[in-house]
């Protein structure tokens, strides 16, 4: 393979790897936003999922970690739902508080569970699962089809989410709830139950996203390691226009922007590394500015 081809493969592989947690979290957030619930606690759910996956994986292997992460994400979303849907507190501030709670909890539990002495924790990460046949495609094969299992989970969720939202009765009820809770209630949709379930589902995927970060990427946990990825996922939902395929493309776009760092390094270009740190956030802002005018949010979002 030529040098350029190798760089391209490396870039694409990195883009897909980085995009996976964003895709998972954003798909979940899209579902609850379609039901009219904006959950800024997705960052906290992701962080809780990350720590739970580390503890689970250390105790019983990666898949136990995945289960623990999903449960932790659901727990965080459950707390958010109890306040914001059950008691109808302000969704934005409630979500911020839940994230704050997760930062404190994970910080305290992490040091207790793994000690404060730096990177004392090294977990077995999930290896790549090559897909026979597809991986033989030049350049993109090894990039797209030699990924950890959780990446494929993210992809499979895209058509599932599409079918659920646009072809199932529950999806219809969910979207109706997000557009006008009053009208949905009048036609017999159990609005609060729909919103709660959608939010719990969003939390489960956010937890899974945290597990991906730990088990398929970093191999350890660090305080505040999600570093705003949950908030970027919210921007991705807007950029993806609340549509599963749009969200997939937007997540890949962000993964690509992040992966440029590796491509630049491979090509020997030197740019201050902070520029790459800033890139996803700056892109998110630009994307929001460009996307908001054209896309329409669910009419009842945040109410």
């Amino acid at each position, binding site marked *: 393979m030529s040098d350029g081809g190798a760089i391209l493969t490396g870039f694409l592989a990195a883009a897909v790897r980085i995009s996976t947690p964003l895709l998972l979290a954003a798909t979940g957030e899209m579902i609850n936003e379609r039901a009219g619930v904006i959950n800024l606690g997705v960052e906290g759910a992701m962080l809780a999922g990350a720590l739970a996956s580390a503890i689970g994986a250390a105790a019983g292997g990666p898949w136990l970690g995945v289960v623990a992460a999903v449960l932790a994400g659901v727990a965080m979303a459950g707390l958010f739902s109890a306040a914001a849907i059950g008691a109808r*507190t302000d969704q934005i501030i409630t979500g911020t508080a839940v994230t704050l709670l997760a930062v404190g909890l994970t910080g*305290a539990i992490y040091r207790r569970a793994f000690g404060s002495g730096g990177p004392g924790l090294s977990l077995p990460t999930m290896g790549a699962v090559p897909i026979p046949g597809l991986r033989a495609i030049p350049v993109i094969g090894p990039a797209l089809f030699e990924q950890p299992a959780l990446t494929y989970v993210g992809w499979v969720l895209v058509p599932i989410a599409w079918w659920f939202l646009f072809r199932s009765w529950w999806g219809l009820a969910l979207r109706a709830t997000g557009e006008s809770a009053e009208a949905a209630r009048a036609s017999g949709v159990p609005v609060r139950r729909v919103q709660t379930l959608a939010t719990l589902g969003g939390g489960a995927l956010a937890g899974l996203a945290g597990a991906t970060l730990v088990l398929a990427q970093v191999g350890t946990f660090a305080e505040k390691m999600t570093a705003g990825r949950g908030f970027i996922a919210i921007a991705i939902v807007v950029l993806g226009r609340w549509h599963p395929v749009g969200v997939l493309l937007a997540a890949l776009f962000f993964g690509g922007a992040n992966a440029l760092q590796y491509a630049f390094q491979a090509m020997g270009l030197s740019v201050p590394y902070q520029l790459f740190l*800033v890139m996803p956030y700056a892109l998110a802002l630009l994307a929001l500015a460009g996307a908001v005018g054209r896309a329409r949010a669910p009419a009842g979002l945040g109410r």
Partner: protein
Amino acid sequence: MSKLLGRPLVVGALALAAGFLVLALGLGLAGYDPALSLGALWRGAFGSWYALSSATLVRAVPLIVLGLGVALAFRAGALNIGAEGQFYAGAIAATWVGVHAVGWPAPVAVGAVWVAATVAGVVWIGVPVLLKLRFGVLEVISTLLLNFVAEAAVSYAVTGPLQEARRVYPESDPIAEAARLPLLHDSRLHAGLGVALLLAVALWLLFTRTAWGFRLRAVGLGPRAAEVSGRIPVKRVIAGALLWSGAFAGLGGGIEISGVTYRLFQNLSPGYGFTAIAVALLARLNPLGVIATGLLFGALEAGAQGMQREAGVPAVAVSVAEAVIILVILLAEVLARRATERSVAGLAAEEAA
């Protein structure tokens, strides 16, 4: 019960109690000694004159100033979640001016540092304001995202243009003596506390005595009603509130540089911008209340450091208490509102009968 929930002090006490209860429970569950931890928290905040003056009060200053900024925006219904980023923007600008202020008269140097910080805060929140007015981007998300950009900017500044002369440590040179605030004898407490208190009183007067304060409130309570009434330029009020909010947060960064650290480095703020949200909410967005809640959270943050030193509990654990306090206040507000609605409905029914 529901009547009590309408009283700020009762709700505040309730929220505090719940916050500490959950913190103690959580610490117990995580395997720490709750009594030792909370004791250490108390000693870290109030255990000595030094703890009170140089830990609690020093930390209360940025929390009051940022809390005022957050309260200002929230009053108009604009959710500035980016005080942390505006604080850092202010700190960068303050440091840049401060290191150049060698030989200036002290009032000029301090004034220049603060003006630079304030302007930087305004510029930093100017981006979300522009995005909101031009493209309808939610300020919640844009201010949040810019926090991360500001942290990266600090990281760049202290390893690049503002790095100390020997180019070893990731921090700036200290600012000129002239730009530093006078300290209270035998402590680290600086004159910024006076500024914070003055700002709080000034903002309270503006809120309660001026048409501007009234417009802010009207827009915050019901932007549509304010718009329909035709007398209030809703967009301009919201934009103004956000810009002023950024000014406060930026100034907070400038005060921190000129009064406490004298230099810029990463993690200068232990999350002051986020804690300020709790400060403002607990004070019910009342500037005089912000003084009290700022002191309270200053004590909490100072105590957290004591807890880490004495009991080995990571300082970040206090955000659990902060989060619970925010949640309890939100819940109490909802319950109080419902009770009011119920009694209004009850009165209406009596009238009708």
